[in-house]
């Protein structure tokens, strides 16, 4: 399973765009990149997943360069409620399921 490296923490203000970059230098050909969000005392919640180029949903965008050795989660116009830990994970389907290995995560603090 590819190991991921991401900043321990980030600070932002309401209304700003936040970009969290994750490094995964030994990503395998079949690996997908997935991001989860976790609020205190809650289980993680799936945000977005991608394989290459750019993926966008109603919550975030995920940018993946051609070499796929890194990825950037972009949160547009953050609010206080976006304060959470964001985990970048890399893995592949293994006979029908994905084994998640969580890294340290990035603790995002959004201030007024």
């Amino acid at each position: 399973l590819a190991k991921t490296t991401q900043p321990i923490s980030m600070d932002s203000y309401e209304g700003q765009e936040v970009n969290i970059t994750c490094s995964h230098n030994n990503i395998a050909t079949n690996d997908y990149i997935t991001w989860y969000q976790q609020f205190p005392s809650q289980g993680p919640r799936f945000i977005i997943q991608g394989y290459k180029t750019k993926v966008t949903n109603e919550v975030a965008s995920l940018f993946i360069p051609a070499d796929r050795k890194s990825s950037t989660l972009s949160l547009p116009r953050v609010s206080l409620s976006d304060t959470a830990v964001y985990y970048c994970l890399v893995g592949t389907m293994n006979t029908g399921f994905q084994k998640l290995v969580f890294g340290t995560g990035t603790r995002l603090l959004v201030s007024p």
Partner: protein
Amino acid sequence: DAMVIQNPRYQVTQFGKPVTLSCSQTLNHNVMYWYQQKSSQAPKLLFHYYDKDFNNEADTPDNFQSRRPNTSFCFLDIRSPGLGDAAMYLCATSREGYNEQFFGPGTRLTVL
């Protein structure tokens, strides 16, 4: 709404006294997972069920057992809890062939 339910949300047990945590799901997913998350750490996979097939992680202590009597329910048994087993225990599910895992709110276990 379809969801993953964990009971109880908070559990207190005594050192060495067996404890069982429960998880139920209305998603009809065939894969269920148990994670352990200690304070300020990332979730760590303990084991998972793929249908009725049980898969233990190599570093999961023997003290931890699991049962899945049917598709909807899964139990985590801690035979002799130690102080180091105090943590949040997260249950998650996924559908075969899909990457996204759906997490429950977790059970916070305190060992006295």
